[in-house]
């Protein structure tokens, strides 16, 4: 009764969970197209898209992807044989157990009319599949906790996934072991199937089972004489063998039985088999009910992601469908860490400790963002920095085992984030090159706005540069600036500048403007001088700093050996560090 209620309850939660999660794919609004199109249009566009694909030659592509990437998981195989083996063990073994063992009343009995869970091959196969899953779990634990690839993050959800599968499997095996030694199970079978009534015969059969099959009897312990065993064997072959293979075939459970044998009477008193049964069934039902909300939901979303990405492409597919696909991809991620392992800039995480730099963590943050969770400005800016710190090399997309178009996702989210109006200082670096190539798609207003904001934020910290006369007051000097330029030996060469202006003369940026001072603020030689004087405001607030093209003409031609370009590089580092910390602190106070 309890079991039936629990089963139906978990099925209902599971079903509602699927509906809820599926609906987010059409409700989450990411990117221009995602915001523009209402949910109803997205649903109808998805139907049209799916129908027009299924009834076209592209069905062949889908079939191919289904076999190779979904069933055989070739993309995982290409990445790492051990991981592929691990996943095939867990998913293959678990699926087979689900079909043959958990759903035996519906599936196995229907396919094989003489099915009994206690008869081979079913008895053996159940244990084999279980052992295969356990092997997979052990490899997963080894990978997550022992090898630990660089920058692989293991979160609570990863632990949950391993634990829930492990509990289901281990409790199942223990239960089987407990049943093998269980005298009451033996009694029940004898009563149900043997039809024996003669005391002696019953004792012979029992003796045979105790001797050969590991049953622990409270009455009989052996040793038994040959004759009793002989009679027991005969009775066994007559009444039992047809429906019960030797328990040794259930090798994992039999192993457990051998270990727990001595404690069998205690087990019986404490009703351990009953408890194990509850643990096993409850773990299955909890896993089922929580599946749509856990990373196990990838069982549904990942195949869909693989299939959708095989036939969809930005520019060719309906924008509404791209938006839906991107929302779905957030659920398809299994947090396997392949993208992070291959990320071109993942190594930067060691110096810029923002987990959002790592693609596998970035996608988790984007999920929170898409769900509409209220983020503080600080959280928002950290995601923004993580999304911007990307060379758009497409490696993450190429290696993703579930085919998520991560690069496309970063692009969509980057513009959404920037539109919020917080400054992104990374936009003052060549990381902006790719964004520049996409400017048509972004739209002029959003494009330019995002570029202006970091300069404005830096300027806001530079009071002196706003003064018309630029007269330097003595107090405005920052004595730490000259000594702060210390990242490399080249940076303090500014001190030998004698103001000959060669750097400024050869600078192609300066040459580009009719009145360079108005556009650029301080010119290169003046910035060198400003470093010596410690007038931080003038150095940081000059456009020259951010418009430097790093062509090294100034440095190459300096007669004094001033590493002008290298000094400018360090000034940029300092300016950004300074203003980034300041603006983040302000937001920390809850604004």
């Amino acid at each position, binding site marked *: 009764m309890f079991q039936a209620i629990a089963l139906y309850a978990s099925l209902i939660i599971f079903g509602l969970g699927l509906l809820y999660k599926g609906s987010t794919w059409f409700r989450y609004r990411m990117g221009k197209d995602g915001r523009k199109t209402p949910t109803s249009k997205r649903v109808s566009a998805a139907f049209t898209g799916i129908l027009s694909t299924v009834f076209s030659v592209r069905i062949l592509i889908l079939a191919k992807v289904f076999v190779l990437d979904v069933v055989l998981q070739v993309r995982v195989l290409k990445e790492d044989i051990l991981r592929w083996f691990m996943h095939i063990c867990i998913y293959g073994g678990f699926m087979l157990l689900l079909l043959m063992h958990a759903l035996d009343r519906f599936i196995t009995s229907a396919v094989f009319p003489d099915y009994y869970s206690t008869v081979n091959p079913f008895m053996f196969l159940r244990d084999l599949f279980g052992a295969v899953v356990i092997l997979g779990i052990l490899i997963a634990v080894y990978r997550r906790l022992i090898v630990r690839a*660089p920058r692989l993050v293991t979160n609570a959800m990863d632990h949950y996934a391993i634990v829930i599968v492990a509990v289901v499997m281990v409790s199942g095996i223990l239960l089987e072991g407990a049943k093998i030694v269980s005298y009451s199970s033996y009694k029940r079978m004898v009563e149900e199937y043997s039809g024996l009534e003669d005391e002696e015969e019953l004792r012979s059969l029992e003796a045979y089972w105790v001797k050969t099959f590991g049953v622990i009897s409270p009455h009989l312990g052996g040793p038994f004489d040959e004759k009793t065993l002989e009679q027991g064997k005969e009775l066994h072959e007559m009444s039992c063998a047809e429906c019960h293979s030797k328990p040794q075939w259930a090798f994992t459970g039999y192993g457990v039985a051998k270990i727990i044998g001595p404690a069998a009477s205690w087990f019986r008193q404490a009703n351990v088999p009953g408890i194990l049964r509850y643990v096993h069934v409850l773990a299955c039902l909890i896993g089922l009910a929580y599946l749509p909300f856990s990373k196990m939901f990838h069982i549904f979303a990942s195949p869909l992601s693989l299939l959708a990405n095989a036939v969809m492409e930005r520019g060719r597919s309906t924008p509404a469908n791209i938006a839906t696909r991107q929302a779905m991809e957030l659920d398809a991620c299994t947090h396997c860490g392949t993208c992070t392992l*291959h*990320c*071109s*800039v*993942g*190594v*930067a995480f*060691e*110096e*810029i400790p923002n987990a959002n730099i790592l693609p596998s963590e970035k996608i988790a943050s984007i999920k929170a963002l898409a769900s509409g969770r209220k983020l503080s400005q600080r959280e928002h800016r950290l995601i923004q920095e993580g999304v911007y*710190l990307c*060379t*758009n*090399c*497409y*490696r993450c997309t190429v290696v993703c085992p579930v085919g998520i178009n991560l690069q496309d996702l970063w692009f969509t989210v980057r513009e959404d984030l920037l539109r919020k109006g917080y400054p992104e*200082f*990374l*936009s*003052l*670096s*060549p*990381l*902006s*090159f*790719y*964004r*520049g*190539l996409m*400017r048509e798609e972004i739209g002029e207003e959003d494009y330019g706005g995002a*570029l202006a904001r970091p300069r404005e934020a830096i300027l806001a910290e530079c009071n002196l540069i706003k003064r018309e006369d630029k007269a330097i007051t003595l107090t405005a000097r920052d004595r730490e600036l000259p000594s702060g330029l210390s*990242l*490399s*030996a080249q940076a303090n060469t500014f001190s030998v500048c004698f103001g000959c202006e060669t750097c400024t003369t050869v600078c*192609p*940026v300066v040459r*580009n403007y009719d009145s360079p001072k108005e556009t650029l603020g301080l010119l290169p030689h003046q910035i060198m001088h400003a470093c010596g004087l410690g007038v931080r405001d003038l150095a940081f607030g000059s456009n020259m700093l*951010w*418009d430097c*093209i*790093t*062509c*090294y*003409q100034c*440095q*190459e031609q300096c007669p004094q050996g001033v*590493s002008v*370009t290298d000094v400018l*590089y*360090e000034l*940029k*580092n300092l300016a*950004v560090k300074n203003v980034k910390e300041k603006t983040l602190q302000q937001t920390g106070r809850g604004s």
Partner: protein
Amino acid sequence: MRFALFLGCTIPARLNQYELSLRAVLGKLGVALVDIRAFNCCGYPLRNISFKAFVLSSARNLALAKKKSLNVMTPCKCCYGSLKKVDHLMKENTALRREVNATLQREGLEYEGGVEVRHLLSVLFHDVGIDSIKKEIKSPFDGLKIATHYGCHVLRPSQIVEFDDPVAPSIFDQLVEVTGAESIDWTTKLECCGAPIWGINDELSMDLTEKKLRDGRASSADYLCSACPYCHIQFDTVQKVILSKRGNNHRLPSILYTQLLGLSMDVDREALGLEMNQIPIDGIEGFLSEQTVTTNDGR
């Protein structure tokens, strides 16, 4: 001749024709390339923001190459400049090296030095040699005028990058001329392409590029030629933006050096990815002559 090929981030994602053509050409010239999948970004785009992240990025790549006992060859001039700069910094600054190595050791790597960083052009010039290349030229160009673009980050700072004479370089010109083309004199030859500022200050970037296009055309060049993904994308994709925003006056298509060399070596045009250029360069095939002509090196 065996090198670890350091493609960087831009080429695999946005400039397939460069990878295709360089593999085709170097294969014929007997240069073996080894791919190291674990290579990461050279750090160039991070240098404005985080010096340490920049150094760590390049140092990790050098450590990976060292592990395989290979010298590094890169077809990107910004990657080249970064790898060279970091190699120099790590040699010169022991405190920095110790700090970076402490981070690298966490993934079992160590920067030890001893890895040579080379640009594709210097490998072609010094290791393969003009004479060997000349032997492979099957249909040299005839009457083709090329505006050779050196690229800043191989030339300067010259003490660190050690590519060629920073004031009067000739390696690239000689490599262009071995194909039978003429490498013209033009005043902005050694100037910036504008790419480093593209996406940050587009007007300035387009000004700088346009200046080069104008100068190239005024010096009667038929094509620009570069050997760097950033320079090429600037002259190709960004030029397209310039043409649409600022008019067609200074149109000057750009070809990658490996495409130019490949054409004169009779490499299959499919393998050179000519079609992938944004501004069409089919016209250049009209300059190919039928029979082999000996060219002098021009300098």
